[in-house]
């Protein structure tokens, strides 16, 4: 099944908008534009906080095609908070190790482990087709009665001012208008909202094309990320192999800039690549073929008054590093608690500016890593190529050169340095996540039950205390006592003020109630700092 060339994974019911049946629509607190993983995750986060959620989905289906397949530990922790993490891990292929090969050698020149700190609930990475992630998000949304996903409703125009926006929505029964206080633009790299506002991107476009060949075959191979520089089956270029659920494998080949996209994905042209990588005798079925090019760029600002951008609509990176959806998902967690507190009048509207500051900083770090990986993978000058090959040559023999080999620095959380919401440390902390950093997980026992630290943090601000005398505050408090890994990772006797997105806002060696109050006010942009 396909629609306008887009393959369909699962059809979804189109419904005529109530606005077109003579029902006067009331003004929405916010409207989410876009039904990819970012729009859906943001919708689910807001729905779980009790808000009325409206999501505009341009098509009336979940599209097929594996697309983004690598979900990081941070993304899995976010899915856990949304209640679908365990379903994703169960269906997905868990991996932690990546190997890098050079030339025709079957021994890796370098390998890395994406989960250096063990004893955490979630693995370094899970591979799963994007449509499963979207399907699970939709399942969770459909179980809630405060959610309205409008399948087959696309934004075609918008006017906006300091109080909100009026969206013109096009559906098969005609156009109608939606009034809203906020527009949450999660409408992807070709964002309609961004275009309607005449806003553009700043950054670099890379002149290179890559072939994705997702194929189905049965062969026993380890669940690892394998990357090749200059392999015999793609001389002078690169290749990548990833395992997905359902015996599907992601094969990715660098093609160079001038390619005929139609020609390149024809079976007879793809076959030599696949057989080169997997062997002449391999029997496979084609699942999804696609050509991609990429940019590393972002919008100058993500917050434009009451129009807020998240995910690919706001920032784009190369796929090396799996920093697309994995950086869009933290956008949603960052935005959801701030918008929630603003809508409940528990925090001033100025709190939104911290979303802009923190997530543009996150995007910059992702773009930096992604650009460096891309320059290593596809060097653009003679000297850059010589450096790359020299590093690979030395990595064969010498340990020091192995970390230089950059086949993609895979997504890890981007800390918020100098965030206005963070209280700088006073005193020395030998261990533990710094303010602006995400909490590290650890196995814990709560009320006699074994569990994990991250999943025990709720959807609100929490005071984490490592000892048996938690300071008294009005905040939800989680006390972790005893001699365990959590104390080793955070420091005995310490207290951490943790935001709803599991970022440390402040920490104290010996917390006093007044300090915690000050830290909390600062973390929600209330009053002076």
């Amino acid at each position, binding site marked *: 099944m396909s629609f306008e060339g887009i393959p369909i994974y699962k059809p979804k019911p189109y419904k005529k908008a109530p606005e077109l049946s003579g029902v006067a629509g009331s003004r929405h607190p916010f409207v989410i534009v876009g039904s990819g993983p970012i729009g859906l995750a943001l919708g689910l986060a807001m729905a779980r906080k009790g808000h009325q959620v409206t999501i505009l989905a341009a098509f009336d289906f979940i599209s097929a095609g594996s697309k983004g397949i690598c979900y990081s530990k941070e993304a899995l922790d976010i899915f856990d908070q949304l209640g679908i993490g365990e379903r994703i891990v169960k269906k997905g292929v868990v991996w932690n190790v990546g190997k890098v090969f050079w030339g025709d050698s079957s021994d890796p020149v370098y390998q890395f482990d994406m989960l250096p700190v063990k004893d955490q609930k979630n693995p370094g990475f899970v591979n799963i087709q994007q449509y499963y992630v979207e399907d699970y998000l939709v399942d969770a949304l459909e179980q809630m009665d405060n959610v309205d996903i409008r399948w087959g409703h696309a934004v075609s125009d918008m006017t906006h001012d300091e109080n909100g926006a009026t969206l013109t929505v096009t559906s098969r029964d005609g156009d109608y208008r939606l009034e809203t206080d906020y527009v949450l633009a999660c409408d992807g790299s070709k964002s309609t909202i961004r275009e309607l506002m005449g806003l553009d991107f700043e950054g670099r476009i890379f002149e290179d094309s890559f072939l994705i060949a997702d194929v189905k075959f049965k062969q026993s191979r380890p669940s690892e990320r394998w990357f090749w520089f200059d392999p015999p089956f793609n001389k002078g270029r690169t290749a990548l192999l990833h395992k997905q659920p359902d015996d599907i494998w992601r094969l990715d080949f660098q093609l160079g800039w001038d390619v005929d996209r139609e020609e390149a994905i024809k079976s007879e042209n793809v076959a030599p690549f696949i057989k080169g990588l997997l062997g002449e005798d391999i029997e496979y079925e084609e699942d999804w073929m696609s050509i991609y090019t990429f940019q590393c760029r972002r919008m100058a600002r993500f917050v434009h008054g009451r129009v807020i951008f998240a995910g690919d609509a706001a920032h784009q990176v190369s796929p090396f590093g799996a920093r697309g959806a994995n950086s869009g998902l933290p956008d949603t967690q960052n935005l959801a608690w701030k918008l929630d507190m603003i809508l409940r009048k528990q925090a001033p509207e100025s709190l939104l500016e911290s979303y802009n500051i923190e997530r543009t900083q996150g995007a910059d770090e992702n773009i930096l890593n992604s650009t460096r990986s891309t320059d290593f993978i596809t060097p653009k000058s003679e000297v850059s190529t*010589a450096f790359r090959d020299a590093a690979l*040559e030395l990595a064969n023999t010498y340990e020091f050169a192995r970390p230089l080999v950059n086949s993609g620095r895979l997504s890890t959380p981007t800390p918020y340095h100098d965030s206005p919401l963070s209280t700088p440390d006073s005193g020395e902390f030998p261990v533990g996540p710094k303010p602006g950093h995400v909490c590290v997980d650890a196995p814990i026992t709560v009320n006699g039950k074994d569990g994990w630290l991250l999943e025990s943090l709720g959807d609100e601000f929490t005071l984490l205390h490592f000892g048996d005398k938690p300071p008294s505050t009005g905040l939800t408090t989680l006390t972790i006592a005893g001699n365990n890994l959590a104390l080793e990772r955070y420091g005995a006797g310490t207290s951490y003020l943790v935001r709803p997105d599991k970022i440390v806002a402040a920490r104290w060696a010996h917390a006093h109630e007044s300090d915690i109050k000050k830290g909390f006010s600062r973390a929600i942009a209330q009053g002076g700092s």
Partner: protein
Amino acid sequence: MKPVIKLNTKANMLRCDDVYEALINVHTGLSPQESMRLNIKLVLFLTNHIGHADVIFEAIAKAANPK
């Protein structure tokens, strides 16, 4: 606080003529491309041995603009 380590721009090496000669002789018979690759490997070895990013950045800046 870690001490700030500066690039040493004073004469720091005994047998400097021997080293200079060895740096040149190793290129005998190499094409410009091969020489470039060899020089890069040398740079990578030595930067790792020095091990202080700030020293390397200072050396890069001074090499690009010696005045």
